[in-house]
């Protein structure tokens, strides 16, 4: 049967040239793969930057980098990983591929807009990296671009700012596309509370993309105008207020971390139900908690600024709201654990990554509360503790969920199975390596090692060396995952439509899916995760009518 790899539809009709077929395709599945290819190339660039920094820090004192190069390096790492990788992240790569399949739709609402947002993304990447080859070197401001330093530094901040603005447009267009698709293209009968939970995660994320991204867009535009024309709004020498910049930056960038994690939470719910062979515990609670994390997440940005000189009243309010976000997140974690209870747990590779992510994310989440407490934050602000907390949630959390999701949908995307043993070894290596890398940083941070410093006191050497070994393990685990996926393409067994015995709609169509996904659109009058005696309850005949 011919799949979307064999035929496609482009924005100009049809092409014979395979390269043109790919870069002008309006098929959501191909666009997802385009995103994946570019994003993971950049991801490995970001990883190399991180490993280089760890090598530099293996011994105290300068090794092989200049301090200024180090500043550029962590900025490069931050901008690549945040703006180019994890913000488009799960929605652009997995979401694009899976969302229409899960909804029972033939494509997104606006296929051409989808291609446009990929092109904006590519332009953003090119502009961001153009700063590497022009001007006085890459930005050295950190990914946060704090004023007034970002107004004064003679490093090449301008292209990076423009790139972040363009990437924002790309993100907004994807968000609009997802919101409309979820509202308009659910299969007949599928109410909001019959949608798979991955869709709920994407839906909440899409609203954050739409409502928060314009805030950073205009803020970065103001910094651009500040550097080029000198309008004065963030410039203290002209009466402007740099603290206002911090506020506006975090009004986007805090919700942005929920934008990263919410689709990941969705993946957890999908994988967990499949590999426990039972329905999810507390479907409504998980769905609504996604939306309420997105909602409350808007109002907590001030906890990044507890030491920036905002008023005590503001600090108390932001601290309280920060604690409130932990409630819906806790609800989710309890629901997942309850789902495991009395399930038939199968420890397949996706399941291992998901369980690992729950453990890491719980550590990352709870240390987040430590940082959200006003008193503790004065001690811990801008130390390695923050860096460790952040990477526990994003690398240990989101990235584990992302990789888990990639394993889970790999058979659907490629039609092949990866090597299960190699997959489990890669997970084990990563889990051990990840904790070796980041846990010592909690201690170093607690003892006062500041973040973003080129050097450290000799007393901290041991923590940096353990972390350095962990970094090597993490890098080799990631390469092993990549190798496993590449080998699977060549020598993997045929997956068949539903290798995991999963229940959602994408598993009822062939792998890889045909160009228009569904020959006939099914009628959905059932819940997403229905199992009986370990077998999916819902079956369709060849015309997508339900077999009773």
């Amino acid at each position, binding site marked *: 049967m011919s799949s979307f790899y064999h035929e496609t539809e482009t924005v100009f009709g049809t092409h014979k040239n395979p390269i043109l077929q790919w870069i002008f395709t309006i098929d959501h599945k191909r666009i997802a793969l385009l995103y994946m290819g570019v994003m993971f190339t950049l991801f490995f660039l970001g990883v190399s930057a991180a490993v280089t920094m760890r090598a530099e820090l293996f011994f105290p004192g300068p090794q092989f980098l200049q301090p200024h190069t180090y500043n550029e390096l962590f900025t490069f790492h931050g901008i690549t990983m945040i703006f180019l990788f994890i913000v488009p992240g799960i929605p652009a790569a997995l979401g694009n591929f899976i969302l229409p399949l899960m909804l029972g739709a033939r494509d997104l609402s606006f296929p051409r807009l989808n291609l446009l947002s990929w092109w904006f993304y590519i332009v953003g990447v090119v502009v961001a990296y153009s700063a590497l080859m022009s001007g006085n070197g890459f930005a050295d401001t950190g990914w946060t671009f704090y004023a007034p330093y970002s107004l004064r530094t003679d490093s090449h901040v301008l292209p990076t700012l423009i790139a972040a603005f363009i990437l924002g447009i790309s993100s907004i267009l994807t968000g609009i596309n997802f919101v409309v698709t979820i509202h308009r293209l659910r299969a007949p009968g599928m109410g909001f509370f019959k949608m798979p939970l991955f869709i709920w995660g994407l839906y909440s994320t899409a609203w954050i993309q739409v409502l928060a991204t314009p805030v950073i867009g205009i803020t970065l535009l103001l910094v651009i105008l500040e550097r080029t024309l000198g309008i004065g709004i963030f410039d203290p020498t002209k*009466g402007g207020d740099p603290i206002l910049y911090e506020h506006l930056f975090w009004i986007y960038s805090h919700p942005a971390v929920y934008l990263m994690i919410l689709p990941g939470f969705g993946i957890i719910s999908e994988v967990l139900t499949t590999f426990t062979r039972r329905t999810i515990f507390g479907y409504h609670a998980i769905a609504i908690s996604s939306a309420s994390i997105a909602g409350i997440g808007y109002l907590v940005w001030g906890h990044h600024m507890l030491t920036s000189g905002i008023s005590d009243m503001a600090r108390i309010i932001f601290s309280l709201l920060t604690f409130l976000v932990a409630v819906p997140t806790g609800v989710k974690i309890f629901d997942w654990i309850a789902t495991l209870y009395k399930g038939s747990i199968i420890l397949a590779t996706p399941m291992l990554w998901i369980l690992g992510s729950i453990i890491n994310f719980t550590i990352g989440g709870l240390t987040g509360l430590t940082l959200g407490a006003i008193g503790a934050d004065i001690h811990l602000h801008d130390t390695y503790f923050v860096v460790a907390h952040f990477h526990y949630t994003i690398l240990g959390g989101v990235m584990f969920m992302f990789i888990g999701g990639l394993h889970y949908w790999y058979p659907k995307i490629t039609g092949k199975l990866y090597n299960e043993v190699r997959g489990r070894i890669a997970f084990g290596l990563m889990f051990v390596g990840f904790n070796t890398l980041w846990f010592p940083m909690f201690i170093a941070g607690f003892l006062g090692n500041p973040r973003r410093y080129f050097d450290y006191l000799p007393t901290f050497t041991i923590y940096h060396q353990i972390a350095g070994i962990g970094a090597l393990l993490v890098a080799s685990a990631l390469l092993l995952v990549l190798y496993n996926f590449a080998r699977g393409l060549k020598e993997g067994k045929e997956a068949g439509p539903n290798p995991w015995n999963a229940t959602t709609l994408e598993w009822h169509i062939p792998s890889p899916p045909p160009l228009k996904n569904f020959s006939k659109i099914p009628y959905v009058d059932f819940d997403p995760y229905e199992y009986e005696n370990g077998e999916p309850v819902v079956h369709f005949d060849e015309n997508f009518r339900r077999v009773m």
Partner: protein
Amino acid sequence: MEQEMAYDALGNSHPITDYKDDYDGEKFGFWVFLLTEMMMFGVLFLLFAINFYRHSEIFALSSGSLNVWLGGTNTVILLLSTYTMGLASLKMRQGKVRVSAYFVGVTLLMAIIFLGIKALEWSVDIGHGIYPSSKILDAKDHGEILFFGLYFVMTGLHGLHVIFGIALMTWVLLLIRSGGIRPEHNIALKNVTLYWDFVHLIWIILFPLFYMIGV
């Protein structure tokens, strides 16, 4: 084209939304897009509010140096233009294609006049040495620097939206001519009308903020 159906287990049929021809979806998508525009301008209004609170008197004084008559004329022009754009949308739905195209053209013309008056105002300001980073402006009080900084950013961004609107209306006219917009298929015109309403709404707020507080 025939309406595609999904069938449940009992054989009842349920209509399927065609993603290639979904009027409500396209309109909804455009509303969501306008939300992003609102958030973007919202940040600028927030910055204006904070700085107005900090420098109330100087903001009022600086506002006095803008030409309220030119700004007022522009406000009337935009109000009229949003009315003609609405009429264009209405006439299209009534099947009066030529009248509709005529009203789009009138709107286009008014948008160009708006930009002309705006350019005149800016050139007078710049002629007086009032522009970001000019020696004359930087020597003035902080409040005045911020007022004119915001003035140029906000009216400039609004002006960019007007230019974009002119491009969209030209596109709409071409579509009407080629039959891409027809009485039974008018979503592009509908969305451009929504966009133009938004652009005029932003100006309705900008006008009192910059021109009236000093009167």
